[in-house]
């Protein structure tokens, strides 16, 4: 595991879950909807260990802490109650937004090269080409399941290595 930088928690910051030693691949799931979270956690836990962030602030902190250990990021597009939505957060994680234009908690985030999968309950409202243009890898329906997530990650792996 990589060295993590100790930072003072931001307002509203909740402590991240303790690291587990089971060795499953770590995935960050950013969604405020508890029902979606429970379903995704139940479906993905056989192969993935999920970290949950309920808003943009928690997401940024978890990325700072566990960014090097993540194999994927699942972002809700809408993120109600957050300053940054999923699309903007994706652009930040791909470092496509000047740091000066960001709120303080979103500055100096590490660059994320792992797949970013955007999830939504209204898939028809967002064209997938636009998602890819902003740096996302795939648009998935909510609730996600293990097959769709793995298929998206497999596509990313094959595009990069073959």
């Amino acid at each position, binding site marked *: 595991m990589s060295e993590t930088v100790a930072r003072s928690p931001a307002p509203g910051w909740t402590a991240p879950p303790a690291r587990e030693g089971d060795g499953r691949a770590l995935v960050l799931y950013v969604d405020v909807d508890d029902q979606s979270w429970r379903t995704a956690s139940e479906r993905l836990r056989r192969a993935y260990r999920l970290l949950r962030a309920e808003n943009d602030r928690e997401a940024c902190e978890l990325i700072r802490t566990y960014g090097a250990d993540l194999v994927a990021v699942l972002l809700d597009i809408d993120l109600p109650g957050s300053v940054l939505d999923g699309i903007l957060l994706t652009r930040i994680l791909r470092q496509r937004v000047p740091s000066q234009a960001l709120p303080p908690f979103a500055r100096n985030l590490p660059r994320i090269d792992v797949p970013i999968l955007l999830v939504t309950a209204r898939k028809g409202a967002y064209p997938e080409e636009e998602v890819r243009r902003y740096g996302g890898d795939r648009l998935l329906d909510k609730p996600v399941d*293990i097959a769709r997530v793995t298929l998206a*990650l497999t596509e990313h792996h*094959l595009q990069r290595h073959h």
Partner: protein
Amino acid sequence: MVARGATRDAMVLLRGALARNPKDGDLRFALATLERGEAMPPGPSAPLDLALVDGWIREGHLVEALALLGGLDLGGPSEEWANLLGELLAPVPAHAEEAFVAMHRELLSGGACVALSHLEDRQRESALPGWAERRLSLLRWMLLDNAQDAPDDAQPTGDAPTALAGVLRPPFAERNLEAVLEAAARFADEHPDDPDARAAVRLLGVLVDEMASQLSHDLSGYQTVPIAGRPAAAMQLRMANLDGAASIYRGLVARQPGDETVRALADAVVGLHRLLEGRPVVDRSFPPPPRDVVIVGRAATVGASPSPSRVVLEPLPRGASPTILEPVPTWERAAEMFASTAPASRPPSTPPASSAPPRVRHSASELPAGALSWQTPSPSATRRSDLPVRSTEKMSAFVEPAPTASAPKATSLFDDRTENEDSDDAVETDLADLAETGDWSLDSATFDLTTKKTALEELDPLEGEATRAVANPLAVFEDETATRLEPDAPPTRDAPGWAPRPSRPTVPLGSSPPPAMPRSEVEMKRADDPDPTLYGPTTVVVHPIRPIGVGDRDGDDDGGDR
């Protein structure tokens, strides 16, 4: 898939296939077409169903299977299969050990058997983490059909059904193939007439030599041994794990259909398994040839009248090794046909009641060109049955034949012909009449083939000789020592006990529910449904012919990225 709106998943499928065959230009062309958003050119379409997915999983094409399941709703257990594949193909942790990373890389590139070997090797070093243990179980389940959990037939147990199996089993239980070879050699010395004993010595010799060659390197200095392919199979052989070795060899055969060495090793593993189970590897169930059928050398036949009462075969050339279980399609059908007329009291594994010693088949492909002169037909008379036996058919000989709808006609001997159809029609009619009358004599007035051959010989002596050689499927069999065979009386339908065999159900693909996954080896044997990975279907790549510079978008015709 594209027509059903699963374009993205179809692209993943193509990427998965490309990971297995990076040089496949057709795949690259199709993927580039989809990436450009263009319509796919029309082509043959395969039914997209669970049977296809099942076959892909068994062949290790896991990415393609997951893409198909993810893109289309195939009903039934498709969702559960997709979730299991999703779990199996999920990325390993970001800082996982190299063995796990290699395992995941192999899984995504079609090397499921190699991935299994990685996990098993890692498991022998130390305990696996929970997720890896789970994936090891999934891989074994998907690829080996729960072979390790199968209570019967996985390893031969109980009383040995044959004396040879009783000799081989004790050293095999000690996981010592060298000792098994020594025991087989002693048994072969004591029973020189037993062809299975000689075959056992040969098979075990092949496997022991393979172990010696693959495991001779000193690997003690390595912490993790990068083992895959034949070394991995040799490791399985050293542990006397025939199922594991067979699985790896099947994967290698599927990926390299032209590798005869791997095919021979796969045949040896399966043949040894048969011997341990007490089943013969030298098929002695076929009856002797029909009386008065003459096969002689070309020099003796051109312009000469052959003796009608004996079959003269040229001796096996020095150095040619006898090959067991070479399934010659025509002969297998002939054996089925004659078996229906043979006395029921004779077990299939006992030699026929003939004065000739047991025969060991020899592959036509192993004989030098000179030794094949008597059975070399002219191009116009070449049939598929006369060509060297394809090695992909070897494994099918281990599958017990299923009963056919009725006793096949004599004309079924020529079902595999591919050329000269017009001239064969008359021969086929004659043979059908011959089968009805039961008169197998070439000199019979009812057999018009003699007249045809005479006419052919006048035009071209080789033509007539070729027709004569084709007329007898025994032309490809020969004994090491005996050079003449005395045939028994020809079987007829009038023989006592003859009855048509029950029909074999023919189920079109996709019309039946998919087989439960996993199926055990026992179920596959009972269902007469061989493991599709056993054959390793030959990949035929048809490259579209495009003029250079015309229709080539990037001016590069080597199948590179567009």
